[in-house]
């Protein structure tokens, strides 16, 4: 029997090194590692991996091309299916998607590292100038005009698919830079901004126009867009941060993860001489345990802080990707588990400590996770000079408030069917704006499905 070749892990900067810089942690496959990993793919006839991909990448096909040494072929397949592959190859939770269904997963040396191969292929495509291509499509679509609200992953994916089919697409972005959460939220060391920009450039090369500094619902209204365009897609995300609702939360030095990360990522406050300021605490506590909490903690670590992460449940319930949790731990983030903050204490207006209680896990709650219960008399304090609250986000109410006839849920999300059709004709939505905070790839899948519906509905109306 031949020896089973195990999965090739991604080479990465060592933890000691990377906590001193903002460079990307993952270093990427070399051609020989990529080819060796591609060889592991069994090219299953029914391609179970594909059912785990929200944007339907033809996974065995592009990996097959890598095996053959045909990188151009691999790049063309990948960029044909996925509008932002270099981003997905970096931030997708592949372990819960494509790689979850890989037949090698359990007994054959681990799932094929599809995400790593995607990153490798996408980077090759970028360096070798592989452009996204227009598709053969109905002549009438050349006259279709679509407006897209927001420029995050859902919007970019929708915009690119519409443009590939020949439609005229204008994207309206509220901030001064396109990319949404990809530029304000996800840190440089996980997703370099030059990579994001190159992916956006590829979307622009399809003829998509992006207008920044337009807050839809304030600068322009959806109804105006519906007058000027044949259809409108809302991909405005879930940008409104949740706070703890405890005493002391408005002290200086208490940030929402959104504010902290936006100052550092979008406004580049980590660079020397940056104009936008950010406090550089020496003892930072991050509250929460999702990917955004890990991003915040690891960013604070890179700014030189001792970082603790306070989470009211146990390690098993942490919502962040396993890889992010591991990376955070390697970088020296201290996990204070089963700990719940009850008050932030201040000195001269600045946070100086966090009062917490210890928790134990009781019966499962509505989410199926065991409900944390306070342990009586367990109060204690954590010394800190900065607190970053990463408890999730909900959709921004600006659009909802500016358009009362648009049906929304009591959580503030827009009501839409699986193709993104909302309660208003010719108006579509997708991504976090309809699901609440989720992942980049789910948002992209939603953008893609909505684009399909927008094209189909347009032709039907003609």
């Amino acid at each position, binding site marked *: 029997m031949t020896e089973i070749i195990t999965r090739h892990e991604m080479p990465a900067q060592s933890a000691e090194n990377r906590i001193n810089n903002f460079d990307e942690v993952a270093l990427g496959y070399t051609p020989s590692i990529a080819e060796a990993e591609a060889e592991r793919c069994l090219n299953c006839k029914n391609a179970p991996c594909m059912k785990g991909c929200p944007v339907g990448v033809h996974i065995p096909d592009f990996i097959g091309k890598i095996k053959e040494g045909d990188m151009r072929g691999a790049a063309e397949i990948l960029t044909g299916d996925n509008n932002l592959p270099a981003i997905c190859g970096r931030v997708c939770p592949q372990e819960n998607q494509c790689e979850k269904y890989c037949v090698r997963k359990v007994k054959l040396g681990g799932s094929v590292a599809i995400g790593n191969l995607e990153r490798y292929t996408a980077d090759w495509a970028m360096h070798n100038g592989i452009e996204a291509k227009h598709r053969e499509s109905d002549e009438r679509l050349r006259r279709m005009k679509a407006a897209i609200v927001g420029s995050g992953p859902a919007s970019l994916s929708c915009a690119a698919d519409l443009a590939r089919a020949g439609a005229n697409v204008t994207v309206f972005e*509220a*901030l*001064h830079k396109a990319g949404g959460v990809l530029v*304000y939220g996800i840190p440089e060391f996980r997703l370099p901004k030059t990579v994001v920009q190159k992916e956006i450039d590829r979307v622009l090369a399809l003829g998509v126009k992006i207008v*920044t*500094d*337009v*807050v839809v619902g*304030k*600068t*322009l*209204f959806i109804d105006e867009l519906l007058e000027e365009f044949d259809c409108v897609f809302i991909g405005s995300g879930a*940008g*409104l*941060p949740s*706070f703890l*609702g405890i005493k002391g*939360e*408005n*002290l*200086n*030095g208490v*940030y*929402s993860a*959104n*504010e902290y990360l*936006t*100052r550092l990522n979008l*406004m*580049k406050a980590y660079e020397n001489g*940056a*104009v*936008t*300021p950010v*406090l550089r605490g020496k003892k930072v506590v991050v509250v929460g345990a999702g990917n955004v909490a890990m991003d915040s903690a690891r960013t604070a670590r890179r700014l030189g802080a001792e970082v603790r992460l306070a989470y009211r449940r146990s390690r098993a319930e942490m919502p962040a990707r396993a890889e992010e949790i591991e990376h955070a731990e390697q970088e020296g983030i201290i996990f204070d588990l089963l700990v719940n903050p009850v008050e932030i204490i201040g000195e001269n*207006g600045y946070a100086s400590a966090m009062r917490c209680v210890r928790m134990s896990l009781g019966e499962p709650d509505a989410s199926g996770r065991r409900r944390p219960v306070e342990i009586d008399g367990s109060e204690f304090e954590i010394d800190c000079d900065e607190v970053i609250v990463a408890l999730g986000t909900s959709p*921004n*109410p*600006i659009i909802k408030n500016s358009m009362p006839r648009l049906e929304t849920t009591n959580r503030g999300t827009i009501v839409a069917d699986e193709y993104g059709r909302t309660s208003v004709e010719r108006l579509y939505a997708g991504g976090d704006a309809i699901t609440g905070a989720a992942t980049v790839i789910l948002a992209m899948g939603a953008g893609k499905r909505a684009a399909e519906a927008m094209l189909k509905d347009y032709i039907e109306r003609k």
Partner: protein
Amino acid sequence: MKNFEIVSKRRLAENVSEYEIYAPYVVRHCLAGQFVILRTDEDGERVPFTICDYSRELGTVRILVQEIGYTTLKLSRMEVGDALADFVGPLGNATDLSEFKSICLVGGGIGTAVIYPQAKQLRSERKSVDAIIGARNKDLLMYTEEMRAACDNLYLITDDGSNGKKGFVTDMLRELVNGGKKYDCVFAVGPLPMMKAVCALTEELGIRTVVSMNSMMVDGTGMCGCCRLTVGGRTRYACIDGPEFDGHEVDFDEAISRSRIYREQEQNHVCSIRG
């Protein structure tokens, strides 16, 4: 004309200038009380400014800028014909004083920029409008002619008595009310300590008071929470819930403390630009 081009620039007082910016998108729906966020250049920070006037015909928006920080100093070195990198808005909610009939506007420093469009608006609704403008000295008073034309009565007061009466806006307001003036609303805009003092006085006098909070912001659309403040015991965002609030409910001490978060860092930047 370039988007976000400076169409005119006028020095109003020491360290205060008025800029007219070409921003056809912003002007389409903007109303008195709303604000914009601008960046001077590609590496600039995002800073909010209240809209002080606008022309839908010309597509221009007017703001007043006091040179106190890095961005405002940088702006002061830009000239007519130069374009800002970004100018986004209108953000926040428009002022709504519709339930009031007799209003006293109180402006301190560049707060006058916020009460001026309000004066015009209220006047057009045929309401009774008085205004008090205060400043440290006569050189820092601004918009006096415009305000005089837009109000029933304008009262000037300076800390040193170099123009108008000597004292603070609160002294003037107390004097007017004691002299028999009846207001059902005070709309106060200016530095935080001034608004705090006005609110303390009007609480005593029993006059409803609206203030406009000029908190620091990053995105200005509810995304970051930088501008949060406590109003009536609840956390609110100046950007999407305000910028105007019931002054008697605002926790001014907290707002003052929050306004000083980056004082040290800001000082270093200002030094680097002043050279």
